[in-house]
């Protein structure tokens, strides 16, 4: 906005004693401004404890889907550098891409699951989930026989004495929906569905509004309320950009079917550890896969079918 000199002067000095008055008010304004700035600085003092400041590189980083391979290379190098600095472990960070002709589906046998929670802990170890504060992608419910009302289920049952008579166990994790409400609501497209059916999060793009958490009908998403911490000796160095690389505070994460394993032809960690063989995983586009067989021949259902999310996570009974 221009401030021309020939403008009718809005502030004409007062006729007498104006100079002194001006000097005094100048000093007063100066003192006021100085104490204001001091108060401002004092109120911002807690920022000294900010130990995870973002680099300019990360601040300006593009969205995952808009990065060229060279740009992705630089980002992976940055992540490697940062992980090495923080954990003193050299990670192998890759950007695993979906395979052609693959759509992953999970099937869980409720007749077999005994609620031992081994899957929960295998997931924590594989995916570098924070242990303080605790974050877990899988939640197992102990349900009394004869009901499907989850309000009647127990989350904090004692895992040492399972299975308990008269109960069945229902593990819940991200259902990788074909019609995911979490993706729809994200205001910045930081979460999306990939061609192999896995819904992923670009942790560097998420702004942490937690709208996806509110939208998910399966309580599958987790938010990093504090800076996640993983003990150095327990860090899994085999990492994926959209998967298990360390997250920052203030972003959302979720189960991604162990992208760093499954896109390299391996099974998810929760399946591998399961002592009862309750968990089945595979490519639904392959008619000979185990999951194709289960979906064709078993009594299969999905959770909360009425919300129209079309999960890729199926439960079944085989007795």
């Amino acid at each position, binding site marked *: 906005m221009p401030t021309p000199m020939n403008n009718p002067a809005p502030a004409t000095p007062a006729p007498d004693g104006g100079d002194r008055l001006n000097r005094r008010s100048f000093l007063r304004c100066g003192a006021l401004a100085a104490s204001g700035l001091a108060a401002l600085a*004092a109120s911002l003092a807690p920022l000294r404890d900010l130990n995870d400041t973002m680099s300019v590189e990360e601040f300006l980083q593009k969205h995952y889907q808009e990065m060229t391979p060279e740009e992705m290379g630089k980002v992976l190098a940055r992540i490697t550098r940062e992980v090495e600095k923080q954990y003193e472990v050299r990670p192998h960070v890759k950007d695993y891409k979906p395979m052609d002709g693959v759509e992953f589906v999970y099937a869980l046998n409720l007749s077999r699951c005994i609620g031992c929670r081994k899957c929960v802990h295998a997931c924590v170890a594989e995916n570098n989930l924070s242990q303080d504060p605790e974050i877990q992608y899988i939640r197992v419910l102990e349900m009394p026989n004869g009901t499907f009302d989850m309000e009647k289920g127990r989350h904090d049952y004692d895992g040492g004495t399972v299975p308990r008579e008269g109960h069945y166990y229902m593990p819940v994790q991200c259902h990788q929906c074909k019609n995911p409400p979490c993706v729809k609501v994200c205001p910045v497209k930081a979460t999306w569905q990939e061609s192999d059916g896995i819904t992923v999060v670009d942790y560097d793009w998420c702004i942490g509004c937690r709208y996806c958490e509110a939208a998910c009908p399966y309580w599958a998403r987790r938010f990093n309320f504090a800076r996640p911490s993983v003990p150095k000796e327990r860090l899994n160095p085999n990492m994926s950009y959209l998967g298990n690389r360390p997250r920052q505070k203030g972003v959302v994460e979720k189960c991604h079917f162990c992208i760093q394993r499954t896109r390299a032809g391996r099974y998810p960690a929760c399946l591998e550890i399961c002592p009862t063989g309750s968990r089945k995983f595979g490519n639904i586009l392959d008619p000979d896969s185990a999951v194709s067989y289960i979906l064709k021949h078993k009594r299969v259902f999905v959770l909360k079918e009425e919300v129209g999310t079309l999960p890729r996570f199926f439960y079944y009974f085989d007795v």
Partner: protein
Amino acid sequence: MSWIKTYAQMLRRCIRVALDGDWRYHLWLGALAIVCLIGLNAYAKQLAYGLAVTGMSDHVSWGVYIANFTFLVGVADAAVMLVIPVYIYKNKALSDLVIFGQLLAAAAILMCLAFVVVDLGQPFKSWHLIPFVGKFNFPGSMLSWDVIVLNGYLLLSIYICGYLIYCRYTNQQPKAWFWIPFVLLSVVWAISLHAVTAFLYVGLGGRPFWNSAIVGPRFIASAFTSGPAIVIIALQVIRFVTRYQISDKALLTLRAIVQVSMLINIFLLANELFKEFYTDSLHVASAKYLYFGLHGHHALVGWIWTAVVFNLTAMVLLVLPASTSLRWLNLACVLAIIGIWIEKGMGLVIPGFIPTPLGEVIDYQPTLNETLISFGVWAFGLLLYTLMLRTTVPVLTGDITQANASQPTTPPTPGTAPLQDKPAH
């Protein structure tokens, strides 16, 4: 382009008087500034340690920030309740007051934006939300709609106020084409603002408490109650501390609006309660938690019954002729504001998360730090509104005009700024 010069001159002169006033005015500004700084201090802690310093969790992932945001969207809507009677029903008693309403809307929207920002886990990455610069999920995400309607409404309010005040400054009749279309647009915009904010919740199929078509109409009804109620109080403060004349007739016109809105609001609430409790399906759990407690958890019961009692009392007062006297009207307004703040804030946002989609009942209680941040944002908003009024009222009362631009702007005797020279009564 001489209007730019004149406009800049007006702005400069208005800003110059922003801090002029007697000790009471300075005390008020100082107190607000201190609360702002305390809030900023609490926010600095939140930046350093993360949202773990709040009472929120993965179970209840939105708390008082989003609750206040929701309430303040309603306050911003109030402006339109002044606009409609003036421009559609030609009610002259309110015509000047539109400016006060639009300023209130602007301050409320800025508070809304502040509450959204303090709720973000990665506030520095909020540039991802800027259309064309970031990656805007429009029209998919209701939050992206909200970004548009909030900022659009802010611009509309600033433009309308700016133009009307400029006309007063230059002592000219506002040109219809320059503002009537914008005023009409702002009416539609205000309603869509609140509808979009309601859709933010309504569109979530996995949250039965919010997934109800009546939430939108209830939002609007409660906004049109609490908003004008706030304006009634604000106008009385304005006429108390400034020379600006506001007639009782204007306040009573607003009373009629609050009265009807409150009746509709209570009726819609009754509809919702009937549907929830008479059906008595599994979906009643959240409402049960809110009104009676669930599985031994009663965190919101005291709050919501306070709101119910306040709202019903306000309704009775507003219907009775007693509230044509300002004393009773003010009481009714204060009760309605508090009642709706509880109901639209804690009463709407929190129970939506309880029980969780997997059936857990986890209470939410805001922490001290979270509360200080919220107070800080409120103080910031009040500070803004105070400064906006302080700078515009002299133009409206004719103390600052283009005609007297060359005369000294300093008041004749120090300490008696135009804002303060009306004796207290």
